[in-house]
C-alpha cells in the first residue's frame, strides 16, 4: 500500500495497517507525538484500533518538552 507520510509518498509491504503498525514499521519510537490522518487527529488510545488505508494522508510530529 502507498500512503503520503509528512508530504512524502511511502510504500509499505502490506495491504492494511493500523497506526500502531506504522509506528513500529517506521520506528517512530518517541513517546509523545501527534498523528493526523486525512486531517483528523488520532488520539493515543486509538492507535491500535485505527486503520490506515491506501492513499491516506498521514501527518506525524513529535512533541518535545520545553517552552
Amino acid at each position, binding site marked *: 500500500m502507498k500512503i503520503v507520510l509528512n508530504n512524502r509518498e511511502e510504500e509499505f509491504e502490506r495491504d492494511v495497517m493500523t497506526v500502531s503498525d506504522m509506528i513500529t514499521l517506521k520506528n517512530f519510537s518517541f513517546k*509523545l507525538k*501527534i498523528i*493526523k490522518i486525512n486531517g483528523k487527529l488520532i488520539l493515543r488510545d486509538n492507535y491500535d484500533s485505527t486503520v490506515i488505508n491506501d492513499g491516506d494522508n498521514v*501527518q506525524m510530529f*513529535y512533541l*518535545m*518538552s520545553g517552552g
Partner: protein
Amino acid sequence: MKIAVIEKHLGKFRVGIAGAGGLGSNCAVSLARAGVGTLVIADFDIVEEFNLSRQYYFRDQTGLPKVLALRENINRINKAITVLTYQVKLDTSNIPEIFKGCHLIIEAFDSAEMKEMLIGTVQEKMPGIPLIVGSGLAGWGKNEDIKCRKIDDSLYICGDETLETTEEFPPMAPRVGIIAAMQANLAVELIMKME
C-alpha cells in the same frame, strides 16, 4: 502595505497564548509590538529568578504571577493593546471558555503532555481555529535545524522537533527567542490573510 494599515488590521484581532514562559512571554511581547489588538494570556505560574535567563520578565517582578507581570510589561510597550489574563492551569474544560473568540492560539507550554492536551482540546472543541505549536527549542546553535511546518490549516509547528530540554540541553534565550518570534511571525502572517 503601509505600517498604519497593517497595524489597523492587526488591531482588530485576538490571539490566545497558552503559557507565559519562554515561548509565551516573548511571543506575546512580539505580537504586542506588532499591534495585535487583544491578547488572552493564561498561565498559573509566578515569576522566579531562574526564569530571567530567557523569559520576558525583570528582577523586580519575581514573586508576581507571570500573567500580571507580562500584562504590565506589554502595557509599558503599547498601551493600546488589551491584555486579558487568566492565572489558572489550563485543562480540557477551561480552554474553550478562556480562548473563546480568539482568532488563533499560540501553544507555549513547557511539558509535552500539556502540549498534547492543548492540541487535542483545540482540535476537538475549537475546530478551525489555527494552533501554532512550539516543539524542540532546547540548547543553543543549530539554526539550520529550526523550521516551521504546516500540518494543515488548523495546525502548525515551529522548532527543531528533536531537542527536548534536559540538564544537558537547557532552554536558552537565543533559541527560545527565535522560536517564540517564529510563532509570532506566523501568527501575523495568518492574521494578515484573515478578513
